[in-house]
């Protein structure tokens, strides 16, 4: 085990490189020849593979008995050890996009945009990719159309043919969605209403019944008050007490 360790760290100075005052694979220094009985280590890479700069290393004299000892990375370096979403203040964006379900269709992102925008752009040649692949010929500045140029835009009267008229129709999905949204809560209601409405009606009837009774009582009282045989407060007090 000790032999392995010595080979790993190059403890034996006799086995070390001739210039053991500095690290073995310093910049511009040739790789020392390995003894035949020593196993080539992964750490003993050629300078171009394992080298991170001579400035990062301490002289070997300081690192004795270790060979190929490197400086450890600085602790405050930004790595995946820290939550990078929090580090870059993206919690709000994360909660916004990953907390809720983002709607799939483009029309949900651009609800005000007219036309059938949910269809793939490759179908009608309106894809953004085609703009990159075949950029439009541009460079000329936009100039307003004068009277002579506008003569080319004189149109025939009448409606457009069906195939072109469809271009200006709003996607029906939007409307149907709204309808569905409205209908969904409404649809179950009528199904539930027969069962739910009956008790409500019954309740209402039940609720109404005491009101009617009260009204009848009030009418009777009024009649009694107006009547010459009015019993007065004495007759009503027991009733109020009984209620209490």
């Amino acid at each position: 085990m000790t032999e392995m360790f010595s080979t790993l760290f190059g403890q034996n100075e006799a086995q070390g490189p001739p210039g053991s005052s500095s690290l073995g694979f310093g910049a511009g220094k040739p790789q020392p020849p390995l003894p035949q009985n020593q196993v080539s280590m992964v750490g003993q890479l050629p300078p171009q593979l394992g080298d991170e700069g001579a400035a990062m290393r301490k002289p070997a004299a300081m690192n004795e008995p270790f060979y190929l000892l490197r400086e450890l990375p600085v602790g405050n370096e930004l790595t995946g050890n820290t939550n990078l979403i929090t580090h870059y203040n993206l919690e709000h964006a994360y909660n916004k996009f990953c907390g809720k379900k983002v709607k799939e269709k483009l029309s949900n992102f651009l609800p005000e945009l007219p036309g059938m925008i949910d269809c793939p752009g490759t179908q009608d040649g309106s894809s953004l990719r085609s703009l990159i692949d075949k950029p439009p010929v541009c460079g000329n500045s936009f100039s307003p159309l004068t009277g002579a140029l506008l003569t080319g835009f004189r149109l025939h009267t009448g409606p457009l043919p069906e195939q072109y008229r469809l271009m200006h129709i709003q996607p029906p999905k939007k409307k149907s969605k709204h309808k569905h949204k409205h209908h969904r809560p409404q649809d179950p209601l009528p199904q539930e209403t027969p069962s739910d409405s009956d008790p409500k009606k019954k309740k209402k009837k039940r609720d109404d019944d005491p009101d009617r009774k009260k009204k009848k009582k009030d009418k009777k009282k009024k009649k009694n008050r107006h009547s010459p045989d009015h019993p007065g407060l004495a007759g009503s007090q027991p009733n109020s007490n009984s209620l209490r």
Partner: protein
Amino acid sequence: MAEKFDNLEEHLEKFIENIRQLGIIVSDFQPSSQAGLNQKLNFMISGLQDIEKCRQQLHEINVPLEVFEYIDQGRNPQLYTKECLERALDRNEQVKGKIDTMTKFKSLLISELGKVFPEEMSKYKAIHGEDAPS
């Protein structure tokens, strides 16, 4: 930065609205609407001029090409942002897991080496310190 986008957004909305109105005029064209059509055509040109001006303000803005793919497929481009954030968090967690595992392995290795090679490890600790950064 947001002002630049707001400006572009405003011009684009105006342009789209103008195009929509142009489409309505054209869809059932009447001879009396020729003047309106001409006006809308010139509005369209001025709208393009305004958008062209916005282009100069947004030179340094880079848009990932993958977003274009989402839009071309008729998908919400916010899904791209969502997937990016989820992927970033996923990778972040993976890397953190690796770092934590390697940190545990390092401390275990140092303690075990310290048992077998106490002298060498004391020298090692003298160089790197007792609480070497992981």
